[in-house]
């Protein structure tokens, strides 16, 4: 555990590429927490996860995992941290069984009965050679190898991409089982906002290498609301600073607020408008947030 009690701590991290910059990036993962990373393509989700795993090194700042510095102790960190991404390297000529044996010799916490159970769950054949697996089967194999290590931290980069709906469902169930253990944490990125919405305790929204928001899921979902109000209200909308989208139709308009609360509700009624409030799904929030940022940046003349 790190000094601040977190399992992962990134502070003041910078990473610069020709067309992408991450500056002053700060992120913590607590014990027992499931953290979901969302953001448009190229936002920096993979960069963030690869920095944590020590595959790439930060230009600036500190990254600590389980109380150790990623820069100096990455080998011992990896005993307790498992990583799955789409491009996992395995030995093509070897079978799934061989990989399981190989992993059991490397990792002290390897759980063979659980590995056997996962073979069944993911419908994998242990005698099959890795090079003959489909993309989905390869991902399932990587997941099996990662889960059966019983790692303290599971780092998943787009784990559901390439999985069919049933396999995605099975994966979600396995991740729920991890939650039973309050010493274990998960950090994952996914384009499946439904999965993120269901699984995460905390949602971190990244865009352009920056953290746009970082909140516990319930507060985050609670703060975004769609308001239906009459068209005449348009002239008064400047009273609110958190509007992310306005859509007009024939009879009324829909206004998306990102920091809705009882004050805003009161304000509408003081202005004499009756409103209807509805919740948004994470998918809707994701779209509104991203489009709003793009409009905002292009209005400032920045080519996002």
């Amino acid at each position, binding site marked *: 555990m790190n000094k601040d009690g977190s399992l992962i701590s990134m502070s003041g991290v910078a990473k610069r590429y020709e067309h992408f910059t991450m500056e002053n990036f700060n992120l913590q993962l607590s014990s027992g*927490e*499931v953290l979901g990373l969302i953001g448009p393509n190229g936002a920096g989700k993979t960069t963030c996860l690869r920095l944590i795993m020590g595959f790439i090194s930060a230009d600036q700042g500190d990254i600590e995992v389980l109380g150790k510095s990623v820069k100096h102790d990455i080998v011992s960190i990896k005993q307790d941290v498992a990583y799955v991404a789409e491009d996992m390297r395995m030995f093509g000529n070897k079978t799934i069984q061989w990989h399981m044996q190989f992993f059991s010799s490397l990792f002290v916490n390897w759980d063979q009965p659980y590995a056997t159970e996962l073979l069944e769950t993911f419908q994998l054949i242990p005698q099959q050679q890795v090079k003959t697996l489909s993309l989905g089967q390869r991902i399932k194999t990587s997941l099996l190898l990662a889960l059966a290590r019983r790692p303290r931290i599971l780092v998943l980069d787009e784990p559901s991409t390439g999985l069919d709906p049933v396999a995605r469902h099975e994966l979600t169930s396995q991740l729920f089982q991890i*939650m*039973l253990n309050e010493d274990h944490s998960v950090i994952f990125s996914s384009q499946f906002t439904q999965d993120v*919405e269901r699984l995460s*305790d905390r949602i971190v929204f990244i865009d352009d290498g920056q953290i746009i928001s970082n909140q516990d899921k*319930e507060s985050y979902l609670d703060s975004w609301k769609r308001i239906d109000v009459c068209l005449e209200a348009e002239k008064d909308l400047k009273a609110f600073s958190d509007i992310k989208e306005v859509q007009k139709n024939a009879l009324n308009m829909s206004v998306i607020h990102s920091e809705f609360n009882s004050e805003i509700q009161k304000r509408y009624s003081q202005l004499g408008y009756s409103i209807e409030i509805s919740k948004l799904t994470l998918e809707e929030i994701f779209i509104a947030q991203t489009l709003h940022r793009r409009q905002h940046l292009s209005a400032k003349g920045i080519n996002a």
Partner: protein
Amino acid sequence: MPAKPELTLPPFKLAQADARPMYEQIIDNIKQLVILGVWPPGMSLPSIRELAVSLNVSVITVKRAYQELDSAGIIVTRHGKGSFVSEQLEQVSQAKQIELTERLVQAAELAVLLNVDITTLTEQLQQLYKEKVNAKQ
């Protein structure tokens, strides 16, 4: 493999598509269980993690539900010991009264909407009430 939690939970009605946030749905489910006495006063609630895993929702969702139930006085959380159904029956019976009122309001609204007059409505209620009392005896 840590064994799946051996929770024998009464069925919870939860829907992702519901207009209410997930934690509110959990609050409503637990309130029902307490009001109907399925979860009696003093009963120890499942731990936040156990309930989250068995309902397939995240820990933060159940935590939020427990916090609000605690501040409403429906449950009591003792540090390090977990949460229990409140033994202060006042809170629970208050919740029961609110629940009854809410359902009567719904019935009244529907009656107005359907143009059912008050006499017919009252007679119908009396009839239903008698049937239930008889069924119980």
